[in-house]
């Protein structure tokens, strides 16, 4: 095999282990469930509650996932945007001192313009009432 490809063998093994683990859990849960309920399976028609999450207690009502206000998504998107902004600032801060000697105006200018664009976006979001939760 190509030496370039051989270095991916660990990844292939990991892939097989991941598939095996997922499939194993599914198969094991089905097999174990059958084994644990082997005596009661004949009465399944009578005993619907066997398959509910809680065999005794309150009967679950409604959907598992509730609907959220669209505002949450808006805030989540804006959060990601400004989160990325900060993420970009870390590597920039690391190389800042070295780059300052050779390309001073460039390294400052590129970050200032980047922050400037996001700041304009922030003003836009603010004025468009993206953070206004009353309405």
């Amino acid at each position, binding site marked *: 095999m190509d030496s370039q490809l051989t270095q991916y063998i660990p990844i292939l093994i990991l892939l097989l282990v991941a598939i095996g683990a997922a499939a194993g859990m599914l198969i094991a849960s089905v097999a174990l469930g059958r084994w644990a309920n082997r005596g009661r399976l004949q009465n399944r028609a009578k005993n619907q509650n066997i398959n509910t999450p809680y065999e005794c207690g309150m009967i679950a009502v409604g959907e598992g996932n509730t609907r959220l206000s669209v505002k949450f998504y808006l805030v989540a998107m804006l959060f990601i945007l400004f989160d990325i902004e900060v993420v970009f600032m870390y590597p920039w801060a690391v190389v800042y001192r070295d780059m300052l000697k050779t*390309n001073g105006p460039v390294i400052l200018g590129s970050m200032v313009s980047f922050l400037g*664009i996001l700041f*304009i976006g922030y*003003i*836009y979001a603010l*004025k*468009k009432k993206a953070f206004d939760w009353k309405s």
Partner: protein
Amino acid sequence: MNLMILELAVVVLGLGILLGDLWTAAHQKHLLGYAAAALLGVILLASFFGLEQVGSGPAYAFNNMLVLDGLAVFFKRFFLIAAILVLLMSVEFSNRIQSGISEFYCLILFALTGMMFAASANDFIMVFVALELISVTFYVLNSFQRNRLASLEAGIKYLILSALSAAFLVFGIALVFGTTTFTNFADIQRALVANPALAGNGLFLLGVLMIIVGLGFKIAAFPFQIWAPDVYQGSPTPSTAFLAVGSKAAGIVLLLRVLFVAVPAVTQHWSKLLIIISAITILYGNLCAIPQRNLKRLLGYSSISNAGYLLLGFAALSQAGKAAILYYLAGYLFTVVAAFTVICLVTRDRDSDDITVLAGLHRRSPLLAMALTMAMVSLAGIPPLAGFFGKFLLLKAVVEQGATNSAYYWLVGITVFGVVISLYYYFGVIRAIYWSKDVTDFSPITVSWPAKLSLVVCMAAILYLGLLPGKPLKLSEDSALALTTPVSGSKQLFH
């Protein structure tokens, strides 16, 4: 830095419009569109004074990622003109967009930035970034009429297929990078010269093929054309026009650079592939356009067939072919924008884009009727308009190559056949204007003066490119020169 001064100006303008929107009353928002168009005009004029260094050969920046040569300047001006005309069109369209018309203008400006970067791209990373900037803005532009199902459908279709094609493109870039260890066009060209065996490397060729797939999607060439009619029909008319002109031209300029600057050694052997793609695209576009009754869908198929005509210039593999592509694109810009502007104005008070809305147009508004007639005649390739001369140049370039491979004569035959088919459906549109029966609506259409101006400019340009081809042909030949000279050492302006 001064290599991308035009792009920076456009970005600043876009951000300015975005901020200006916040302090503009709703009934004055159309002024923002006019302001954006006017300021783009200023940027266009400035490009004639600020880019003098182009005369002294190509200039490079950012580790050769950006190049400013004749080709880049030609396309930058091309995109600026397209954006100005589309902005004027979108002001006419503003009554059909429920909210956020200023954002519509901004997105056009941001898409324009991506196109202008594409014109300068000299590195596969730059290609990808520029194309994504174009695609992502078009996802929004295509689905801008949120309350119209067709518009949302167009946006979703474009999103899914564009993402798929971007995946192909990135995979192709990865394979090319993996086999050559370069992403820069000039470096790849040098690597191909230094190591001719590379041009036979399967992985490398697969990479180049995947890149062509990604770009072929942008220009809607067969077999990557399937999205075009649906998206053209559903999108808001100005978005469709910008998609048909700007996005397609961006794909063309990138294809030119990739095929003739990055991998010329491969392109030499792929003339058959280009001939086949070109022939099928022409046939597919023209044959499918025949039964269409929806104007925008008709122009969608027409846009596919035009991609086929443009590919003729690639298939010719000659300098004349490249110059013909540029000439044809210039004519195509004004023709298509004129057609879409008329459609935008005619359908202003109606909900349908059906061909019957044109009935009696010559009495409702003679200017619109004349503009649409000229656009259709030019698209059909009738002398003396721009479309004729462009097609003539493309076919001439192909015939000149006929001596090397008889397949070129077949290609000419298929093209002529396609053009003859196209006469039928283009003249169907003209017939709908002048010879419709049972016309009841003769209410005159009022056209605002900026829209009139843009139509007159388009008509003048169509006539000029058809009647006086000398100067523009010289310009496109000079611009295409950027694709001949083997890339020498870099003239570093900015590191």
